[in-house]
């Protein structure tokens, strides 16, 4: 929470900033293509999808939960939206329908967890399989291509010199930050993660707010899916597979505690950027994608050790 940052968490974030700068410096020395305006914009644009998902994931993890279904929700909402567009629905309506579908899938997650008392890991694992299965069934495994220009603007358009995905991601981060640091809902989310029993005893309708974070996560996954499909001009039923990994990685690298109640979007932003720069740098250096996984794993482990040391 903006108002309660301790010296410790400043140190933690400061450590992350240094890690980020060191990473950037190393890549600058290793590749002359890294530190250019076009590459920087590229990195930012690539980080938008993960960034938007990670905002929802941060809120989920702050309540000591987890959402494994983000990639599958992204996939299902993407193919459904693309299908509606091809059927000639107006862009605004199709996008709204897709976003509502994402929120509803998140609502189902939330109800399974609060009313069904299923642990978040299991509930969202189920949703992960279910939504992917529905996406494959819906499309019969075939990609949906050829989308209207009005829709493609979401992924490929510009506002002034700034790519549209970056504009959207910045808005999502700003709204998320405002929600967590400045609103009642934000304070309740931290309280819930900190001590769910005390939260309930204080009269907070805990189930409502736990459900809410999964709704937000589902909604933002759908939004990220729109941008991705608009950029690629194609909705594959397997799109988004494995995206939960990068989102969770960004959140934990950013210092949000899996135990809930501690952390926030400032750290997640850095986490997203570190992962994006890492992906980009390994690409520029022509590192084989096999090693890429290894390096990513090592970096995540190092970041977690850094947080541990700061505690």
């Amino acid at each position, binding site marked *: *929470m903006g*108002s*309660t940052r*301790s010296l410790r968490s400043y140190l933690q974030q400061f450590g992350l900033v240094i890690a980020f700068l060191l990473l950037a410096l190393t890549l600058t020395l290793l590749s002359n293509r890294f530190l250019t305006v076009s590459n920087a914009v590229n990195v930012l644009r690539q980080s938008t999808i993960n960034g938007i998902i990670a905002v929802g994931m941060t809120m989920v993890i702050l309540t000591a939960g987890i959402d494994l279904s983000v990639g599958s929700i992204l996939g299902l909402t993407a193919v459904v939206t693309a299908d509606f567009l091809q059927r000639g629905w107006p862009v605004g309506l199709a996008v709204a329908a897709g976003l509502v579908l994402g929120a509803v899938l998140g609502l189902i997650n939330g109800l399974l967890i609060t009313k069904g008392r299923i642990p978040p890991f299991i509930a969202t694992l189920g949703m992960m399989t279910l939504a992917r299965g529905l996406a494959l069934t819906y499309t019969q495994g075939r990609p949906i291509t050829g989308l209207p220009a009005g829709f493609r603007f979401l992924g490929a358009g510009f506002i002034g010199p700034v790519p549209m995905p970056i504009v959207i991601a910045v808005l999502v981060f700003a709204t998320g930050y405002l929600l967590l640091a*400045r*609103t*009642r*809902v934000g*304070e*309740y989310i*931290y*309280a819930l993660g*900190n*001590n769910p*029993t*005390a*939260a*309930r*005893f*204080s*009269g*907070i*309708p805990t189930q409502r707010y736990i459900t809410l974070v999964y709704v937000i996560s589902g909604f933002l996954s759908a939004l990220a899916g729109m941008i991705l499909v608009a950029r690629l001009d194609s909705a594959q039923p397997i799109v988004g597979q494995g995206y939960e990994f990068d989102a969770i990685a960004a959140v934990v690298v950013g210092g949000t505690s899996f135990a809930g*109640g*501690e952390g926030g979007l400032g750290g997640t932003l850095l986490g997203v950027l570190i992962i994006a720069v890492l992906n980009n740098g390994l690409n520029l250096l022509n590192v084989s994608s096999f090693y890429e996984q290894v390096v990513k794993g090592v970096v995540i482990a190092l970041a977690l050790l850094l947080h541990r040391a700061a505690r």
Partner: protein
Amino acid sequence: MDHDDFILRMEQICKRFPGVQALDNVTFRVARGEIHALVGENGAGKSTLMKILTGAIPRDSGQIILRGQEIEIDSPGRAQQLGISMIHQELALIPYLNVGQNIYLGREPGGPLPGLINWPQLYSQAREQLARLNMDLDPLTAVADLPIAQQQMVEVAKALSFNADIIVMDEPTSALTERETETLFEVMRTLKAQGVTIIFISHRLEEVFEVADRVTVLRDGRLIGVAPISEVSMDDVVRMMVGRELGEMYPKQEVSRQDVVLRVRGLTRGNDLRGVSLELHRGEILGIAGLVGAGRTPLARALFGIDPVERGEIWVDGQPARINSPHAAIRLGLGFVPEDRKEQGLFLGMAVRENITIGILDRFSVLGFPRFRELDRLAESYVRQLDIRTPSLRQRMRNLSGGNQQKVVIARWLTLHPKVLILDEPTRGIDVGAKAEIHALMNRLAGEGVGIIMISSELPEILGISDRILVMRQGQIVGEFSRQEATQDAIMLCAAGGKGNAN
């Protein structure tokens, strides 16, 4: 009795914790093969003494002489080697392992190769231990499938498997039914006949008088007396336990009786609450006494909508009330300060300000945006009013002392101006100064017309501050005392099942 008859002598044991002398020159002597009861109020020093005996904490001074030899017990493992085992109130078995595995956990007899276990030998040894207790129990049964009473037998068998000849039992009957208690007593007598010495800690005096040979009474960390059971009466023991006259520790303001703010009829929930009825008046402090497990906390939880009840009606201010969640209870003007403030009351990782105002956040928000400046001012005023010692409103809760943490929990309720405030063990683990401040605060609230229900295991506290006292036993209200007629002896007798002023 000659010194040589004592298997165990703890001589002039002293132990100091920050702020309290837990044991002050306590001498405790146990004869070979007796059942020796150790009694005293909460905080008398029983547990501390037994923790020292079983090596869980070190003593400051004094000697421990076992079988005539002065010894050092510096770890629980050492105590076990010396033949001293303790069976805790909370059983320490692993539910999904079977009985035999639990008895020999970590000491399994080896097989032909290192790392292998000789299962047949393990189970036959387990059978032998169980036979010593006259228990017909299959060592292959999973512990989770056993009733609590039999799980306790497994603990006893485990203790015996260490060749223990001194077994400490800490409140072993608190979770047992009467029949199970009888079985346990049979086992205790069987062990005694085999020469095993048992130290028996219990709050229930009738049990002590049924099974023990001698009794040692502690109070406020001092030895008050030792006597053969045959030579004392229950009243004598109660008097020894309670002892002191009430000092001026609890200044009480008299409040004239006003309207009923809370009325409860026939509240029932399983065995925890069996038809509880009560009335609470505006401005009244109603003390609820009783032993651990008597149903006091379940009553508080039911009133506050935490656990659903099967039957029963509640009226607040004369209106019938449906309380099915804490949220609903708070809307009706109830507040609840739970027993375990760290687990249930506080957001330890959050700031003092947030902890104080979390309950009133919705009333101080415009379109979901809290007015932080006003919340700060509000929190600041409570910090000053209750004299909460914190460097700033931004301080994280976990850095405050226990007394100040409790004041923050109370402040949270004060922001909501409740009509009824329920406090469960409000001063447990809090130093004397903060305790007096919390009592003064309760008096002030009562003076302002708040109805207060206070659950406490400390009789002096109950007697000192309550206008009226209800005593609970086995999920029922078994006695009611006015402030004038209440005495510690009477309440203790009533709570433990003796004669009372029952309705």
